[in-house]
C-alpha cells in the first residue's frame, strides 16, 4: 500500500510569511509524528498525535509553530511569521498504534527554505 506522503516536497518562502505543510499518514495508522532536520540541530522531534488524545507538543520550538490532525488522518504543520532559522527538512512519520516497539514509517519530507 501507499506510504506516508508529504506535500509540498519543496517550499521556498520569504521571511515573515506563513507556511502550511501537509502529511498524509499510512491508512489505518493512529499515531502521527512531526520531526525536523536541520544542519545545526540534527533530527528533532516536534509533535506527536495519537488517536483522540491531546497531542504531545513538547518539541515545538516556539508558539509560531502549530499542528493539527483532522479526522484522525491528515495532519497540517503551520509555521507563522517564518524566520530563516526555520529552514529545514520537515519529516512526518506514522505508526500503527504508537506503541513503544511500533515502527515509525517516514515520509519523504518537505524541504523549507526561508529567504
Amino acid at each position, binding site marked *: 500500500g501507499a506510504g506516508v506522503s508529504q506535500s509540498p516536497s519543496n517550499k521556498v518562502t520569504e521571511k515573515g510569511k506563513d507556511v502550511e505543510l501537509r502529511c498524509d499518514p499510512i491508512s489505518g495508522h493512529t499515531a502521527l509524528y512531526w520531526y525536523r532536520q536541520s544542519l545545526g540541530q*540534527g*533530527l528533532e522531534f516536534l509533535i*506527536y498525535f495519537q488517536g483522540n488524545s491531546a497531542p*504531545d507538543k513538547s518539541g515545538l520550538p516556539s508558539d509560531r509553530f502549530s499542528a493539527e490532525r483532522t479526522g484522525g488522518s491528515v495532519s497540517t504543520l503551520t509555521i507563522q511569521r517564518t524566520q530563516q532559522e526555520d529552514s529545514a*527538512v520537515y519529516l512526518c512519520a506514522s505508526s500503527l498504534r504508537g506503541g*513503544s*516497539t511500533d515502527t515509525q514509517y*517516514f515520509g519523504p*519530507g518537505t524541504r523549507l527554505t526561508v529567504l
Partner: protein
Amino acid sequence: SQQGEEDPQALSIQEGENATMNCSYKTSINNLQWYRQNSGRGLVHLILIRSNEREKHSGRLRVTLDTSKKSSSLLITASRAADTASYFCARRDTGFQKLVFGTGTRLLVSP
C-alpha cells in the same frame, strides 16, 4: 541537547569491507532503533533492539546493545556501494513516545 552521540561522523570503506557505527546515550531506554537516510530525505527503519536484548540480526546487519555502558553498535557486513547513506540511531526513552535521534554517521562505500 538530549541528542545521542554517534561515531564516527563519517566512514569511508571499500566494497566487501565491514562497517561499524556506534551510538551512545545517557537516558533509560525502552528500545533503540537504527535508521538509514539517503540523500537527506526519507528515513528507512532498519532494525529495533529492545532494552532487554543484547544482539539482533537482520540480513547483513548486526546490532548490539549494552545498557550498562549505554551504547549500541550497528555492523554492516560485506558492504556494497548501495549501502552508501547516512545512518542514525534513535532511542525510545522509557515513558516517552517520541524518538530521539543521534547525530548520524555518513557512510561511503566505494566500488
